[in-house]
């Protein structure tokens, strides 16, 4: 608890005591020191019906493992709701609740508030309980963005919003979301006889949006399921640092991206190694790039061409050479022109954007 006392200069009297931020302790989960130290217990187990090699289900499993048993999970509407929790066959070993598509932020806030007030009033045992809202890119980057933004401004509540990003509305038939990559073939952007590229928008840069917009938020980061130990440890850090936190995870989706399920893991790595998906954490305002991303930034690793990533996926099968070049040029820009390479898209000089197809 942080109490501040105001002194009146004239009378030097204590006139009032003001509580600024009433921080509750967290579980203080330490990092797993190696894969062999990770506990065997699973809190997301059998009973779901996700696709083969579903990386979104994978991060949900890792998240539950990382958080442990004293956790409440909210699952926003999306493929990870519909494919995961069928009535009478729930896979959850921790309390779980369905949350509306746009309610990851407000739902987590409501749970954290209820726990805090009941513990304060003695109506519930006082203990740190992890609160996690798990939402997709549709729920997090599109519909639920304002609720998440508001929640990240509430320093009093300990909670984590984990946004899994399979770059489409994968539950409803693979439609464009705010994080679908440029040019992707989705069921709302199928290439046609006249228009080759139906989706012209560039992927929303979600984590930096959260960083820049919410100065009191203590932890924002990106993760990838292709680096599971790191992902779990970042989740544990986000749950331990206190206050509301946000993690954005990229999740290759065999169905939505149209690739052989055997490639799920490799595509996650390629996204990082091509520089498309930078891995970083912002902890108390300090940016740390990690993994291959750090090597890319330091010049120790040369980014692989985006072609290697794009051409393994059916959603880019309609790309012509110009499209691949354009995509590559936009990624190059991230690393050569951005004020904080790979993270913050402010530029000193703005050049005209000239995509090959409109």
């Amino acid at each position, binding site marked *: 608890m942080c109490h501040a006392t105001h002194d009146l200069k004239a009378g030097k009297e204590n006139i009032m005591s003001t509580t600024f931020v009433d921080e509750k302790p967290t579980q203080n989960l330490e990092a797993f020191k190696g894969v062999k130290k990770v506990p065997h217990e699973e809190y997301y187990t059998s009973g779901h019906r996700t696709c083969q090699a579903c990386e979104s289900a994978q991060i949900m499993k890792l998240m539950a493992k990382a958080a442990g048993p004293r956790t409440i999970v909210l699952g926003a509407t999306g493929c990870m709701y*519909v494919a995961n929790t069928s*009535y*009478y066959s729930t896979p959850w070993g921790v309390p779980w609740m369905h*949350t*509306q598509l*746009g309610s990851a932020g*407000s*739902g987590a806030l*409501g749970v954290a508030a209820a726990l805090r007030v009941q513990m304060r009033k003695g109506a519930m045992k006082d203990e740190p309980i992890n609160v996690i809202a798990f939402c997709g890119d549709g729920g997090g980057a599109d519909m639920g963005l304002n609720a998440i933004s508001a929640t990240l401004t509430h320093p009093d509540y300990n909670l984590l919003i984990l946004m899994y990003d399979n770059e489409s509305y994968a539950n409803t038939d693979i439609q464009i979301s705010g994080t679908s990559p440029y040019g992707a073939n989705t069921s709302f952007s199928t290439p046609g006889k006249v228009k080759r590229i139906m989706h012209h928008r560039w992927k929303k840069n979600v984590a930096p949006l959260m960083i820049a917009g919410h100065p009191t938020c203590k932890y924002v980061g990106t993760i990838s399921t292709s680096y599971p130990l790191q992902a779990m440890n970042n989740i544990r850090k986000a749950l331990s640092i206190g206050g509301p936190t946000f993690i954005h995870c990229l999740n290759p989706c065999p169905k939505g991206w149209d690739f052989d399920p055997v490639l799920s893991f490799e595509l996650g790595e390629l996204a990082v190694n091509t520089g498309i998906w930078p891995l970083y954490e912002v902890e108390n305002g300090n940016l740390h790039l990690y993994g291959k991303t750090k090597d890319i930034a330091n010049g120790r690793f040369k980014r692989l061409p985006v072609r290697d990533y794009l051409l393994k996926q059916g959603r880019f099968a309609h790309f012509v050479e110009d499209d691949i070049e354009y995509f590559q040029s936009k990624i190059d820009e991230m690393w050569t022109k951005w004020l904080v390479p790979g993270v913050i898209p402010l530029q000193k000089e703005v050049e005209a954007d000239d995509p090959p197809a409109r």
Partner: protein
Amino acid sequence: MATTTLPVEVEKKIHEQEALITGAEAIAIACKLANVDVVTAYPIRPYDTVMQYISQLVADGEMDCEYIVAEGEHSQFEIVKHASICGARVFCGSSGVGWMYAMEALTVSPALRVPMVCMVGNRALDDPGAFGVEHNDALAVRDLGWLLTWVDNAQEALDTALIAYRVAEDRRMLVPLAISCDGAFLTHSQALVRIPAAEQVKQFLPRYDRGDLLLHPDNVISVAPQANEDWVMEIRRQNYAVTERACSVIREVYADFGRTFGRKYGNPFFEEYLTEDAEVVLLGMGTLSTRVRVAVRKLREQGKKVGFVRLRWFRPFAGPEIAKCLERFKAVGVIDRDFSFGSPNLSGVVATEVRSAMYTGASTRPPVLGFICGLGGREVTVHDVEKMTDIVFEAAKGVTQPLTQWIGLRG
């Protein structure tokens, strides 16, 4: 000197306070007395004064709750929905299109069995923008499993808020409840209100206990997993069962309220005014009752035997009782402060429901005329009531009248 024990009634008087407050302030005080845990606010007139009062109560240390200002009504209602499932007693509210903005949260709450208590400061729906009262906002959730009540004065607002928590949080119910207060006429109008003592309220209102439906690590449950044609119908039937029980639970709680606080409301579902010898009656909800009562007294001086029925609970709709009450009159006029465009007979919502109740529940069926009146905050004047009464008397004489008429309309 020997000490004597004071009679209970006297004890109550000692601790009870009287204050000149608005309807919104009365509900804020009820929230304090109910020891509400989580309150969410978002500005929209006219309901939002209740949140201003609660904010002050929190700042003054009179109320201990999580007071959260949301970034929109959708979040406002989602926050309390989740808090309620985690065991917190919650309060929120809205008005007009704000209530509609929260519609998704309002829709899922009854099926999730969330006993959130809300205040609706009834307001006309946009467009055009208007601050005044209309009942279409709260009525929009009438088919979803919400309990809906309309109050008429600040005392009733306070009492009903306490009753609301008992009813909504009853294990047999666990459904959301909205207390409708006519915008401006009640939300912003002061009246003398008797405020019960905290101890009495504590006795009347036990702590909310969600039991085995609590979302907590000690109770590992999955709430609202995906169910399709295999189970949805059975789940809907459970909500239906709540509505079957609603009337008896409400009756029970009003009786206990009367015993605890000494203020008895009689029939909880509707209030009758000068109906005993009446030939015709008017029926309506909310604050229009003040004008109607004045008009009824005036008309009776002219020898016109008219009475008034004020509907207090719209959901549950006490159909058989209302039918039994109304069947004894020669004609009935229903004043709707709402509209239901395209409905049977193009009447308002209340008239349509009354006719439906009468069709099955009444042994004789007097004509039921629908009046659309007082929309957008326009006053229902004594003159309007006289006009409506005259029309109802014509119908009672057997002169056919249009089934729906707009009263107090210009041009």
